[in-house]
């Protein structure tokens, strides 16, 4: 199958790129002096001693060692993985919320021109609000919510904040996609007495798929970033955000440890984007280029 072969080739290229990055890391470490490069008082290149830039193999080795001196401490790898799974779950919930919200907004903006003019600037503006400022507010509101038997939990706030980042690319991408059918196609539906709803389902949504897929992937990556930042700023335990902070405190004595956590966060983003990439396989019929 050419599709399988193309997929393998892409994975191979990605792997080679990763190896090149690792080799570069070691080259910089070997070539640049430990104290870095300075011009007067300005630092041109950072320090490259083992504390600032641990060897790749040291980081990898650290993954296999125990997290702390405690007797039943898990390995760094195990701790990172379980934290990553925790965060991934929250990020996916946030992503799903963001996708639903983004799609609804896009449909609203497509339906009413006025809504587009009224809402779109706010959508853009929403992304300039720093998450760190927003997080305590959301936690505060959540804490005061009464949902009957359902208790508002900390992770829900985190998911909500993640969705706040994820909805943006979805709203913008979906709007562009919904507006992508040509005038001839839209008029054809009108000539066939198809109402707005039918036109949405049979024309606009299928036509939006090529615009929507990259937006969904981007949304997944931003949901992960949002979840991690929200974990840190709300003080949520168990996720990779917390892990990054607590490992960073060990940086001076155990320089490889924070890098391990960063590695976990990076892999997390890749996995999230990859999961969404699978959606592209399901929807491949709609990924055709436009024909006249």
């Amino acid at each position, binding site marked *: 199958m050419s599709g399988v072969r193309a997929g393998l080739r892409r994975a191979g290229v990605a792997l080679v790129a990763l190896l090149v990055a690792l080799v570069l890391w070691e080259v910089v470490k070997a070539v640049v002096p430990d104290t870095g490069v300075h011009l007067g008082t300005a630092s041109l290149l950072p320090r490259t001693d083992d504390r600032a830039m641990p060897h790749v193999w040291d980081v990898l080795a650290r993954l296999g060692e125990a997290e702390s001196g405690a007797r039943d401490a898990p390995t760094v790898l195990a701790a990172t993985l379980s934290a990553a799974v925790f965060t991934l779950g929250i990020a996916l919930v946030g992503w799903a919320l963001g996708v639903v919200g983004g799609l609804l907004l896009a449909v609203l903006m497509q339906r009413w021109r006025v809504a587009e003019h009224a809402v779109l600037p706010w959508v853009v503006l929403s992304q300039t609000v720093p998450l760190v400022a927003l997080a305590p507010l959301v936690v505060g509101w959540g804490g005061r919510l009464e949902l009957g038997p359902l208790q508002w939990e900390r992770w829900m706030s985190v998911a909500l904040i993640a969705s706040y980042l994820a909805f943006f690319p979805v709203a913008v991408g979906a709007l562009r996609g919904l507006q992508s059918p040509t005038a*001839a196609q839209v008029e054809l*539906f009108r000539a066939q007495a198809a109402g707005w709803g039918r036109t949405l389902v049979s024309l606009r949504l299928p036509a939006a798929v090529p615009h929507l897929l990259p937006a969904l992937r981007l949304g997944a990556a931003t949901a992960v970033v949002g979840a991690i930042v929200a974990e840190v700023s709300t003080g949520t335990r168990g996720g990779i955000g917390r892990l990054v902070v607590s490992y960073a405190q060990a940086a001076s004595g155990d320089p490889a440890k924070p890098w391990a956590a960063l590695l976990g966060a990076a892999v997390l983003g890749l996995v999230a984007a990859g999961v969404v990439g699978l959606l592209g396989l399901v929807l491949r019929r709609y990924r055709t280029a436009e024909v006249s």
Partner: protein
Amino acid sequence: MRSIPVPTGSRSGSTTSAVAPAAGAPRPGPAAAVRAVGVHKRFRTRAGVVTALQDVHLEVAAGEFVSLIGPSGCGKSTLLRLVADLEEPTSGELSVFGKAPRVAREAQDYGIAFQQAGLLPWRSVRGNVELPLELHGVGRRERAGRARELLALVGLSDFADHTPAQLSGGMQQRVAIARALAERPSLLLMDEPFGALDEMTRERMQTELVRICAESGAAVVFVTHSIPEAVFLSDRVVVMSPRPGRISAVVPIRLPGTGERTEGLREDAAFFAAVTAVREALHGGAAGTPAVAAPETAAGAPRGVDLR
């Protein structure tokens, strides 16, 4: 069972044929497929108000093939879009089979094809032809049967499962025509459907269209830039002129009935005579051309901007 191919024209039984001053309605009979009385269309643009159509009178009989021809900006596409209820006239009366265009559109009395085939790239050829039927809730089995008939009619039976991207421009346009015929409309509206095709494909498509129209019995309003195309296809050619857009002449074409038009006709003396007649009407040399009746409208009306 769905609609019937040829309208039986029950509603406005007796058509008062006096309303069309230009060349009159050629045949008496059931309600006219299209009837325009004193239609005006003005667009508001940034440059001011543009008169796209001025005092248009036209009657197209059921089963008749009428071409609209004229230079850019003469309003021929606008007239077609008014009939299709894609635009509304500023003033005047317009009816399709005796109904308001909006009612006719909702009742699917017409099929339409544009210069751009406008096929949905994610649907197969069959899926595209079935689209109108699907939109109107026709059952799966009936859709499949109708699609098979239509694809046979336009000679694309072997391509039912291809995607539009795999077809040539001419084939895509044939799919669009099959789609326009899906609901067995008694009126076909075509806006330069062959405009984007090369000359050879174009002539072949014209011959096919003549055959398809003869088989379906539908009236056709056909917008074109090409004189030979208009002459080859039509029973009457409506010549329009720009600024403001209006009908300047109507040329009846006296060629064998659309059923018997074949390639040989293109070299016939009668064909050339008709081409000449239309050309002269187009260039304003109305004198001497057969049966040209220009509905005199206010000359020297305000200048507009080319619309398309």
